[in-house]
Structures are given as C-alpha cells and as structure tokens.
C-alpha cells in the first residue's frame, strides 16, 4: 500500500515502522501534529520538534523536521534555548505526562510563566509507558500501576490548570479519539504567540490498560469516546449528568507580552535601533 501523503511529506519513512505497541495512541497524536502543521502550511525547515524521554518522546525521530530528542524532563528547557537563540523558528515540544509534569514540572511552569512562544503537546496516557507502567502525576487516584499495586493514593494533576496558573496563554485538551478537535487545538496552539499547551489524552493499553483491566487499545478509545465531552456541552449539562465525565476543549486564551519579543526590545533599545 502506498503511504499516505502526510507520511510521505512529514515522516522519515526510512525510520518506520515505529516502536509503539499495537493499540498505542501516541501515533494518532503524532499524526495530529503533522496534520496541523500541514493545514497551517508551515515550512519544514523552519520547524523544530523537541522531546524529552519516554514512548511519546520517540515521536520526533519519525518526523521530518529539525528534531531533538533530549533528556528526561528537559525538553522545554532545551526548547527555551533554541527559541531564544533563534526566535524565528517555530518550536514544538512533544512530551509525556511524566516527562512534562513530574521530572520536567519545574521547566513547564517557568516556561509558562515567561510566556515564551513554545507549543507544548503532552501525550498524556496517565502512566509511565516506557519504563513499564509506574504511576505518573496524572494517574487517577485508585488506579493501578506497577508501583501502585494496591491502588494509587496520589491526587493527579490537571496539567492545564497547572499551566494556566503558571501563566500559559493558550490551553486546550483533546483526545486521541476526538482527533478533529485535537488537530484544531494543536493548530491554534501553534499559531498562538506565547506559551501554549495541549493536553492530548492518549492511551497505553500495554501497561495502563492491562493493569487496570481497561481492555484493548480499541476498547480504551471507546472509553474516551463515551466519557469525554466537549466543555461547551459539559457546561450545559445538569449536575447529575456531569458525574464521572471528563472534558475536552479550549480552556484559556489570552494575549500577553511574549518573552523573546520582550528580550528583542531590550536588544533594540541597547543598540539604538528603536
């Protein structure tokens, strides 16, 4: 079968097939990013994709842009240096829930606070996939992980609330099932001037699914379909119908001075170019 146009144009087909398990939805989220890039007509040479470490963070190796696979948790910090050094580049960060909100949590909140023009896509599967299913900061309370054999007693993060509180200026959540919406949020996040973040709910049937008896990848996708509702719909639901539902949608959008632009003003002032 002839590979799709999207694959031919935006993927390094020599590196395929990918390492992800059957039923893993990280591939769907990766495709959503390239689809958004395609729709925006972005220049591949001018686009940089930076990731940390994890199953999700292996995505850039398959993507035909300037790509950097860094160290666990540090993708946003590496990306900060890239963006500062060359603000004309479009810099997208691919990260996992653990990568972004556990080991990399400090970089996440401070990049959000600076409102530096990065687009962060969190492949959020509520588990540490790569290391074999340990609980992450987004694993629900009472769920199981290899390090939560008696049920998780941690309270999970809402990564978007965390980012908004820290100063992010665009936040949205999509899911691997609701791809049309996911693509449009990623597209808006890329276009947004400032720190933008998309929480992309992904599924890990191999570790999260197996431990929590959530079924196959397909069954987990059906679960996403049945349990995630658009925030606009959710807001109109009567209280009793909201119970147990999860929301996707756009949550926050603001214009605020962007970090590299503010820094450029200092340079211009000092060099008398203003």
């Amino acid at each position, binding site marked *: 079968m002839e590979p799709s146009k999207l694959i031919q144009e935006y993927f390094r087909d020599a590196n395929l097939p990918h390492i992800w398990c059957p039923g893993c939805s990280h591939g769907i989220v990766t495709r959503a990013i390239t689809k958004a890039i395609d729709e925006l007509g972005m220049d591949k040479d001018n686009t940089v994709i930076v990731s940390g470490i994890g199953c999700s963070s292996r995505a*850039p190796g398959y993507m035909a842009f300037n*790509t950097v696979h860094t*160290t666990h948790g*540090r993708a946003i910090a590496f990306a900060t240096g890239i963006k500062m050094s060359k603000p*004309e580049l479009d810099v997208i960060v691919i990260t996992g829930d653990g990568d972004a909100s556990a080991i990399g949590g400090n970089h996440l909140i*401070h990049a959000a606070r600076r409102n530096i023009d990065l687009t962060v896509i969190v492949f959020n599967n509520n588990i540490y996939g790569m290391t074999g299913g340990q609980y992450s900061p987004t694993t629900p309370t009472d769920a199981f992980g290899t390090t939560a054999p008696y049920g998780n007693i941690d309270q999970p993060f809402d990564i978007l609330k965390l980012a908004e509180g820290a100063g992010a200026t665009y936040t949205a959540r999509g899911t691997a099932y609701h791809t049309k919406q996911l693509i449009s949020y990623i597209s808006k996040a890329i276009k947004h001037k400032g720190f933008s973040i998309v929480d992309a709910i992904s599924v890990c049937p191999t570790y999260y699914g197996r431990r929590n008896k959530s079924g196959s990848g397909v069954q987990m996708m059906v679960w996403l379909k049945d349990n995630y509702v658009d925030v606009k719909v959710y807001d109109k639901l009567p209280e009793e119908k909201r119970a147990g539902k999860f929301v996707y949608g756009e949550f926050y959008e603001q214009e605020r001075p962007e970090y590299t632009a503010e820094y450029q003003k*200092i340079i211009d002032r000092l060099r008398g170019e203003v």
Partner: protein
Amino acid sequence: MSNKITLMQGNEACVQGALYAGYRFYAGYPITPSTEIAELSATELPKVGGKFIQMEDEIGGIAAAIGASIAGTKSMTATSGPGFSLKQENIGYAAMAQIPLVIVNVMRGGPSTGLPTQSAQADIMQAKYGSHGDYPMIALSPMSVRETFDLTVRCFNLAEKYRTPVMLMTDEVIGHLRERVVVPEPGELEIINRTTSEAGVLRPRPYEKQPGEIVPAMSVFGDGNRAHTTGLFYNETGFPSNSTDNAKIMLERIFNKVYDNVDDIVQVEEFELDDAEIAFVTFGSTSRVVKAAVKALRAEGIKAGMLRAITIWPSPEKQIRELAQKVDHIIVAEQNMGQYVREVQRIVEGQARVQHYGRGNGDLIKPQELVALVKEVEHGTK
C-alpha cells in the same frame, strides 16, 4: 595600536573572553562564587545581540545552553559546587550528541553546600567522571585573570573544533581575583568557528565524517538540513541504533576525536624543570603558590621545579611520564583531599615517588608549607 590595559576580575575575564570568542548565549542559575559571570553576561550579551536567560535551576541552565548551541549559537553556562552536580546529566548528553558547549565551574569547598565563599579544587574528578557512562572530557584550568580570558577563548575553540563540551575549571581565588590585564586586540587570538553543513541540503548521513574533517560538520537549524539529535546511541544517520557494533564505533569516535588530538589539546607550563630533582605537579590557582615556593627553594639552592597542567583533562600523560624519568619525587599540590594525585600516580606507574599535598577546608596552601615539605623530603624525614 596599543592594547587596552585594565583592572579585571577573573569572572569578568571569563565573560570578556567568551565575548571575544563570539559567544551569544548564556543560560544558568546563580551560585557563589560564579554569579558575576551570569550578571556580566546579562549586562553585556544584549548589547551585541546575544541572549541571556536566568533559568529555574542549573539543569535548565545547561539544557537551554545546549539547545542554543544545537540551534547554531556559541553558548556557555557557569556554576559552582552543587550546581555542577546538577549539570552532570546534560554534560553527558552534550558529549554523546556531540554538541559544542562551554561549562564554567568556579570551584568552591564541598561536599554539599560546603564552603560557599571559600576556594577549592575538589571537583577535578567530577569534571572528568561526573556524568554516567564513558565519555572523554576536555577541561582547562587558569592560574591568572588574563589566562582566564585566554582559556575561555580556547574552551570555545576546542568545543567548536571537536564538537564537544569543554570545561573551564577555575576557582574562587581566580574568579574573584583582580589583576591588571592587557586585553587582547581583535584578531590577536585565534577564533575557531564550527564547521557547518551546506545549507538547503538534506543529509542522509549527517554523522559521516567527510575527508579532512576531524568531526562531521554540524547542521544548523533553519538551514534546511533537518537533522536529528539524540542522546541515544545513534549511527551515521543520526537516528538511534541498538547495535552493539555500532555503539562501539560511535564510542570510539567520541573518544578518539579527543585522544587522537592530545598534542593539540594539552597545554602545560614547565617551570624550572631542566635540572630539577624534585617537582610539583599542580594546576589553577595553586600554581601561584607552587611557583612562589619553587623560587624560594631555588634561592636556597634546592633544585625544585613545577609542571603545571593548563589542560587538566585529558591529562598531560606524556609530560608527566617524562617528568617521572627526570625526578625522583613528585608532589601533587592541589586544594583537595587528593584527587589529581591519583591520575599522576596512574601515569607515573612507580617510576618516581608521588605524594599528595593539600586539603579541602578552604584554607589555602602557603608557599612556606611547600618549602618546609621539600626540605623534609630532602632530609629524608618525609
């Protein structure tokens, strides 16, 4: 044309040297006694169109600095003590991914928070072995303010030439010392810029060395190479490879680009060694003390000399081995509990007696102590 002469602090000379070398990006986190490097970088970089950012911690500092270098900008990060420990993981990343970067460590007393305002030379082994895994390291250690300037320039040159992280291992004494400095004119010191690959060309094998190259040319972001950088073992395509055969080849390349070029990288100063019977091996600020001691000993007719490692890593093996043929007794003087002495012992292989002199409590070694020590050695009491 006459050179500018000015009173300068060691940390300031580091920043001025970096600017001279063409650095345009600094990222770090403040810590005594390195903070002036961050402060002066914040002041000076935007004036030349460069960028400064104070990150949320040292890990972020080195990560951002590596990111800027990957994007094509000469970059630097500086730290001390605990901050040096925090940078270690990404030092290994830069070594593995072959990213030019200058890391400055203005050493202070440790372990832990230790002695924030006292000098030490106790991160010598950490400089070489601090990150996990096998990798080579280039580290230079200045003994004066002017040399801090020169060696910072050299750190950038070596980093770019060999596509590798390079350390400037200075200390509180040199960092905060103020000395009269003759500032080099533009063009006076050599500046090496990285070799970059041709713009607009997709390179299927960006890590394949072309004839005449020491290291493969680097891709520049935005120039159309669209390369991949990773800390996993990669093959010549730049993409990960699990093959142990490939890992062997890549590891050897990372090592050999340094060890095949030690004659280019290693610099030493030999002081009164021609007829020496007893010699000091030392580096950095302690060399000042040793030099004074050697002069005092010579004044009394005792044939002492000094070998100063300007390049501490890779260590000057050839020079130390030659020294061991010449003298019976080597004293390794360093501000720590005994670190570089182990490297010297390894190289000397029993060809001369090797002894350590130093301490790690921040109390600087004094020339009189070294004079007394040599006399005791001469009288056979030590």
